[in-house]
């Protein structure tokens, strides 16, 4: 299948926004990130909105959008509800974060965490179709979730290093490391699941990724930039990061932030390339006419 760029961009931005929502939720549970929570919420909202706009370019008739809820059982409709819920939560949290309502912020923060976990899974499930063996595995929504957590949590940590309190930095870094681990594990799981997909065919085989027409995308885009480099960069960030008790020099903070921003860029590239591969291997069981 050709790469569906509007859907690809939508899924990457949606994942990023969802990861930020989870980051916000963790911050609320731990009582941290207060200084940057408005920026985090607005960033999540902007990412979700931009993703939503991107997805409309996939449609042939946006003018008929009012028909979209014609089949509430379709995964597409569930995805739409999940996006709307996540955007609403981000908006409410952004408003609350400008005021001092600790109780309400905590409740909405927990809702943000839930929305951030549910949305990528819902988006991924909409692609699980028996007709496309390379998609019909729960490792696909898990990959959507994991890569979203990686991008969003590292972005959140980078924002904390750029604009947040110094005492929040160690927690932010720990969350970022967890995000990168989630991203790596789910990316590997998705690629591994291709080997187990039914109706084996060369077009969706691991051989095509490892040594075939998708080898450059896989080894450079996914393995190197999507997995190895982000892991190394967050490792360096953890090593360079100043301890909370000692505060640390401005140079160390700046260097750690630099590693996090670089890791974020690499994770975005890795997520995009893995989705390019996801579309390339999405051949149907029997392509008879098209």
């Amino acid at each position, binding site marked *: *299948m050709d790469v*569906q760029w509007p859907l690809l961009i939508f899924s990457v931005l949606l994942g990023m926004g969802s990861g930020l929502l989870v980051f916000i939720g963790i911050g609320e549970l731990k009582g941290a990130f207060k200084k940057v929570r408005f920026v985090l919420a607005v960033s999540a909202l902007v990412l979700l909105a931009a993703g939503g706009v991107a997805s409309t370019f*996939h*449609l*042939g*008739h*946006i003018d*008929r*959008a009012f*028909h*979209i*809820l*014609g*089949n509430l*059982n*379709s*995964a*597409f*409709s569930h995805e*739409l509800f999940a996006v709307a819920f996540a955007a609403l939560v981000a908006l409410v949290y952004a408003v609350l974060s400008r005021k001092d309502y600790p109780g309400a912020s905590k409740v909405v923060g927990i809702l943000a965490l839930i929305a951030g976990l549910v949305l990528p899974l819902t988006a991924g499930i*909409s*692609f699980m*179709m*028996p*007709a*496309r063996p390379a998609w019909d595995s729960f490792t696909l929504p898990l990959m959507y979730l994991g890569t979203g957590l990686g991008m969003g949590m590292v972005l959140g940590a980078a924002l904390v290093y750029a604009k947040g309190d110094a005492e929040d930095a160690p927690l932010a870094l720990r969350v970022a490391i967890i995000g990168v681990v989630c991203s790596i594990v789910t990316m590997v799981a998705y690629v591994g699941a291709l080997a187990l997909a039914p*109706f084996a065919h060369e077009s969706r085989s691991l051989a095509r990724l490892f040594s075939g027409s998708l080898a450059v995308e896989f080894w450079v885009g996914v393995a190197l930039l999507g997995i190895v480099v982000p892991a190394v960069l967050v490792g360096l960030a953890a090593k360079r990061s100043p301890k909370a008790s000692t505060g640390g020099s401005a140079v160390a903070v700046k260097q750690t932030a630099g590693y996090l921003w670089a890791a974020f860029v690499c994770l975005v590239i890795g997520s995009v390339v893995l989705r390019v591969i996801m579309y390339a291997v*999405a051949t*149907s*069981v*029997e*392509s*008879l*006419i*098209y």
Partner: protein
Amino acid sequence: MTRYTMAIDLDSCIGCHSCAVVCKQENNVGLGTFYSKVLTIGPSGTYPDLEMYYLPVACQHCDNPQCVTVCPTGASYKREDGIVLVDHSKCIGCQYCVMACPYGVRAYDNDRDKGVIEKCTLCAHLVDDGKKPACVRHCPGQARLFGDLDDPESDVSKMIASKQTHKLTDVGNAPSVTFGLDKCEWKGSN
């Protein structure tokens, strides 16, 4: 209950592509788009024992159509008589049905009715008028048969009762079109 479908006697198909051509004429199908095509399967075997058959393909009007399940607007729907159709006035062109179809027989229309999904309608407009689909009426080998699967006297039921029958790969969608083939080995999975 009526369940309209098609049965295709592959032993009688001569691969003339008349069905694909008349389908385009009847349904005004745009350039580069096909509702129906005829594939050549083979030749297979070892010389001189070679065999080959033709496989006309189109929408299988599945009993459990995944295209209908995934359609967010209800534009893809299955009529009570078994025919699966697309209501163009509701179609938003999201192409989820194209992805969900196991057979690659749905197309995004860039030509005639821009931005919607097209596919074989089993000539529902003719069927509703008491006629047979154009491909069935014009098949010179009378390989294509149309009728009610629940009527044992229909052409479709008679062919199914008289030949070895096969269906395209079923991934839970339960394709309704039946292929009859006695003279060659079926190369599909079912």
